């Protein structure tokens, strides 16, 4: 047995026979030619043929792995039309009077060299794309089939590196895993592997000449290990792991439609966190009971001016309508700190996390806040909408918010626009809010604990600072005590309290939270069924 190490880009396990993909040994020969015009014509034809093949690959990828991953084949088509690339091929043919294959191969080498030497990881990875299109052109010129891989049985694909066109042409049903010598976490192979849920290891230091198609092997994506001729012991371990993974997936699927209730009958709501209307699909797919945190920032970021009321109204309305009566908690603008919008002209701050952000912007620039509130209340007439205010530190802030909300409601009433009285809550993400949670509970309908900021403010640890990792303990007693305090304050007033920070999705704490009396956990859609499982297994 040989155990090789690599970097795992998709965690999973596989066992089977390997299929070694060797790059063609086809060497492009330099041949003198007389008729340069005819060579140029051949290039034209090969470019055309390549573009058509790429269009087909694009359509195949679109169906199998979606738009985002298919786009690379569109880019390949565009690269083939690049003026500099074409000019270089034509120049080599005309000035050196050589064959088209040679001109394409040396142009491809030059351009991919240029990308390979850039300091930007993403652009360096594009060198593979240029090699890919150049190989395709050469194959089309020399009459070889540019399309590869016909697999009879499922295999572990082992290669030096895989080009996007090689990866997508493979029959997904026949691939157990990818193992490559080269490639980066940014490469298309890595991206496709994740989309296709296939275990993949890259950067494995192996000698392809020494490996043979048909040899037994195992891939452990959890540990980044590739075993060639695995021992019985390893085989057994991997097989067990495969079974486990399969069972886990099946079990999770069976939990759809089931309640989040412990054996003792305690019920807890599992909601989803989302960042845009486009994420709604995952919410429904994973059977979330509602949306516990809808970050409204996506409407504000990546543009040049504030979104107007109508645009916001349409987005919120779509969200509540899609959820068809299930709760949708929309958090008002939480910009500032690590999320910036240039048009707001927020000055550079010494301490952005302690700076002009979230509700502070909304209260200092109430016209921005009022536009959002009007859109939210208008949308409330179309479904089950709740509003949540971020970064609260005092009861005065809540009083100010309530005054603005009152104004908005009166304006809507005067305009004859329908709205509902919605549940309004606050995020508890500052130690101050925790300490006055008893008073806040009298003023609002619910609490949602934002553990990311709460932890950072309580432990005085900047999470972006890697040097502090060793001091950072997300399970710190101080945080757990604070959560308990917030939950108790809410219950005292007959209100509910949930958690929408990352901690809420930590399976190690689910049981603790349920015992504390937390009423709701709002987590990434992919975590919903996993937490449901834990809850249902609790006594």
């Amino acid at each position: 047995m040989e155990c090789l190490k690599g970097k795992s880009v998709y965690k999973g396990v596989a066992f089977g026979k390997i299929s070694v993909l060797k790059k063609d040994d086809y060497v492009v020969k330099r041949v003198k030619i007389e008729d340069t015009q005819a060579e140029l014509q051949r290039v034209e034809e090969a470019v055309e043929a390549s573009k058509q093949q790429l269009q087909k690959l694009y359509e195949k990828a679109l169906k199998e792995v979606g738009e985002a991953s298919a786009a690379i084949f569109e880019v390949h088509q565009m690269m083939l039309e690049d003026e500099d690339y074409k000019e270089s091929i034509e120049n080599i043919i005309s000035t050196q009077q050589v064959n088209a294959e040679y001109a394409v191969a040396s142009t491809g080498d030059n351009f991919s060299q240029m990308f390979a030497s850039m300091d930007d990881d993403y652009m360096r990875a594009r060198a593979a794309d240029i090699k890919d299109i150049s190989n395709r052109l050469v194959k089309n010129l020399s009459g070889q089939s540019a399309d590869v891989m016909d697999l009879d049985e499922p295999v572990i694909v082992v290669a030096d590196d895989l080009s996007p066109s090689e990866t997508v042409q493979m029959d997904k049903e026949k691939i157990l895993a990818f193992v490559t010598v080269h490639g980066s976490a940014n490469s298309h192979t890595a991206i496709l592997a994740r989309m296709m849920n296939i275990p993949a290891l890259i950067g494995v230091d192996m000698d392809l000449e020494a490996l043979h198609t048909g040899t037994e092997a195992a891939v452990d994506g959890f540990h980044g290990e590739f075993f060639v001729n695995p021992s019985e012991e390893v085989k057994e371990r991997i097989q067990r792991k495969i079974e486990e993974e399969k069972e886990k997936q099946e079990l999770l699927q069976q939990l759809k439609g089931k309640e989040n209730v412990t054996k003792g009958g305690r019920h807890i709501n599992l909601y989803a966190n989302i960042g845009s209307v486009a994420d709604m699909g995952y919410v429904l797919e994973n059977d979330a009971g509602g949306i516990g945190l809808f970050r409204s920032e996506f409407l504000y970021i990546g543009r040049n001016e504030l979104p107007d009321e109508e645009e916001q109204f349409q987005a919120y309305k779509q969200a509540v309508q899609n959820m068809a009566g299930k709760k949708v908690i929309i958090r008002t603008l939480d910009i500032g700190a690590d999320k910036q919008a240039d048009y707001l002209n927020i000055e550079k701050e010494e301490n952005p996390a302690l700076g002009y952000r979230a509700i502070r912007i909304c209260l200092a620039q109430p016209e921005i806040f009022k536009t959002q509130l009007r859109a939210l209340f208008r949308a409330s007439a179309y479904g089950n909408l709740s509003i949540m205010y971020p970064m609260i530190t005092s009861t005065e802030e809540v009083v100010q918010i309530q005054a603005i909300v009152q104004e908005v409601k009166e304006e809507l009433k005067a305009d004859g626009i329908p709205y509902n009285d919605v549940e309004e809550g606050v995020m508890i993400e500052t130690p101050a809010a925790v300490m006055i949670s008893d008073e806040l509970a009298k003023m609002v309908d619910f609490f949602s604990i934002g553990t990311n900021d709460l932890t950072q403010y309580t432990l005085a640890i900047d999470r972006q600072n890697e040097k502090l990792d060793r001091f950072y303990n997300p399970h710190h007693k101080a945080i757990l005590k604070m959560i308990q305090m917030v939950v108790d304050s809410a219950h005292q007033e007959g209100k509910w309290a949930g958690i929408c920070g990352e901690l809420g999705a930590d399976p190690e704490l689910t049981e603790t939270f349920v015992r504390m009396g937390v009423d709701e956990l709002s987590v990434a859609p992919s975590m919903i069924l996993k937490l449901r499982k834990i809850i249902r297994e609790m006594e």
Partner: protein
Amino acid sequence: MKKFEYTIKDEMGIHARPAGMLAKEGKKYESKITITKEGRTVEASKLMALMSLAVKCGQTVEVQIEGSDEEAAYEGMKSFFEANL
């Protein structure tokens, strides 16, 4: 000649795909359109040259347009950047 500056908002910067779309857009006009980042200038219609600028999110580029249809090209490029980058 007309020109404008633009700060890239797209998280990925001018990566392969928008560069391809930008090159396509650049080819629509008669005018010569160039993109400059940190003193390096490339033609907007050339995909690989554009990619070689490796423009990241938050970086500012200058777009220069010169030629017979520069008015239309200016408007076209401006709205392209705002919509896609």
